[in-house]
Structure formats: structure tokens, C-alpha cells
């Protein structure tokens, strides 16, 4: 499994850099343009979450983004070392309301085929999302 990693600091101006880098990584792995765009949004949401919530807007803190190839798709991880995500505080947004915030993780869930987070670490949160190649997504409903 080939893994490439980008390390950024926790400033919003870095998000454009993430999008460019991720697009290149995904294109190199044969991911189509539409899926690239979707994953750019998903990873952007996770990096934004790290900047806003894990680091509370504090600049200069590290965020690691990695892309790994595997036979059936790609695995992307976004990792910060700030305040861990608190799943007990997360509420699924009510989309019948006009939300000004709170839809970021919902968007990630919708764009990824699999989405998880790891809090069993000294600090911070590691988010993992999986996107399968077309036709490779396992059918788990059977």
C-alpha cells in the first residue's frame, strides 16, 4: 500500500493547498474528477474541523493528511493533535432547518463510503475515510 502524507499547519489559508495536493494524489491513483471533488470537500471539512474545534482557531498547529492506495480504492486519514472529538456532543443536523453550522461531518459521511474516527491516542483525533473504486464497494446489507 503506497501512502503519501502532507503536513500543514492549522490556518484556513492552508485549505487551498490541501485541495491541490489531494487532487494530485487522487488523480495519480486514477480517481475520477467527480470523486476527486467530493473527497476534496470531505477532507476540507475534516481539516476545517481540526482548525476550528481541535485547535480552537489557534494557528501553527500540525494537521497530517495521508492518502493510501489499496486494491479496491483509497484510504484517507486526517489527523490532529488537539482537543479530541467528543462524539457525545455530536448531533445529526436537522436538514429541514436552515443550518448555518453543524453540517460538516454530515457532508463527510455522505461523501465517504466508510467514515470512522480514532480517539485512542495520547492527543487529538484521527479521522479515516474510505472511498471504493466504482463497483468495488462491499454489499453489507446481505
Amino acid at each position, binding site marked *: 500500500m503506497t501512502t503519501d502524507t502532507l503536513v500543514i499547519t492549522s490556518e*484556513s*489559508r492552508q*485549505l*487551498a493547498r490541501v*485541495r491541490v495536493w489531494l487532487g494530485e494524489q487522487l488523480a495519480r491513483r486514477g480517481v475520477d474528477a*467527480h470523486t476527486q*471533488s*467530493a473527497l*476534496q*470537500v470531505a477532507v*476540507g*471539512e475534516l481539516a*476545517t474541523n481540526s*482548525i*476550528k474545534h481541535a485547535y480552537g482557531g489557534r494557528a501553527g498547529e500540525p494537521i497530517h493528511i495521508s492518502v493510501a492506495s489499496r486494491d479496491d480504492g483509497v484510504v484517507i486519514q486526517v489527523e490532529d493533535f488537539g482537543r479530541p472529538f467528543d462524539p457525545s456532543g455530536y448531533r445529526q*443536523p436537522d*436538514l*429541514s432547518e*436552515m*443550518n*448555518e*453550522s453543524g*453540517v*460538516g461531518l*454530515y*457532508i463527510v459521511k*455522505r*461523501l465517504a463510503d466508510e467514515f470512522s474516527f480514532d480517539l485512542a491516542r495520547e492527543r487529538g483525533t484521527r479521522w479515516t475515510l474510505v472511498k471504493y473504486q466504482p463497483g468495488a464497494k462491499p454489499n453489507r446489507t446481505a
Partner: protein
Amino acid sequence: MDIQVTQTGGVTLVVPQGDLDMGTADHVKRMLTELIAKGQSKLVMDLTGVSYVDSSGLGALVAAMKQARAVGGNLKLCGLQDDVRSIFEMTRLIKVMAVHSDRQEAVSSW
């Protein structure tokens, strides 16, 4: 992010160019808030030049739309690129915001 603002009749046309993310959302929100405060609450935003919108960007547009509606106006959108439109559909904002296919249609809808 570059933003052009043009008055056409009683409608204010706002044309941003670039990505609408956490880094630019506050700027857009502030600019729209200032227009509404000046009485320019009939707004059309042409997103033709915007290829990326995330939840921060959506939040800025929803906030401005609420402000405009509160004073009898609205923020109408047009020119959504396919990937941008899919984010509006996913969050169901496509159903509650006024979204038009192009600038002419959006402006004349006032």
C-alpha cells in the same frame, strides 16, 4: 476571493470568484451583511466562478439569506456548478434557497 458587486435596477448582483471555504466565508458573510445593512437586500449571487463550497461557505450564505429575508429581501443564487450543486442538494438547501439556472433568470425573478 474577488467579489464584484453591481447594482442593476433594484437588485444587487454579487459575483464572487474563487473558493468559498472557511478562509473566505467570513469575508463573504461580512460583505453581504454590509449590503443588507445599506438597504440592498434584494440580492443575486452568481456562483459561476465558484468551483468549491464547503459547510463554512454554506453557513455564510444561509446567514445572509436569513438576514435579507428578515428585512423583506432575499439572497437568490444562480450559476451553480455541478459539484457545488451536489453540496446544496446533499444538505437540502437547494429546496429552501432560491436557486436559478442563470443570472438573467435570477435577476428577472425579482
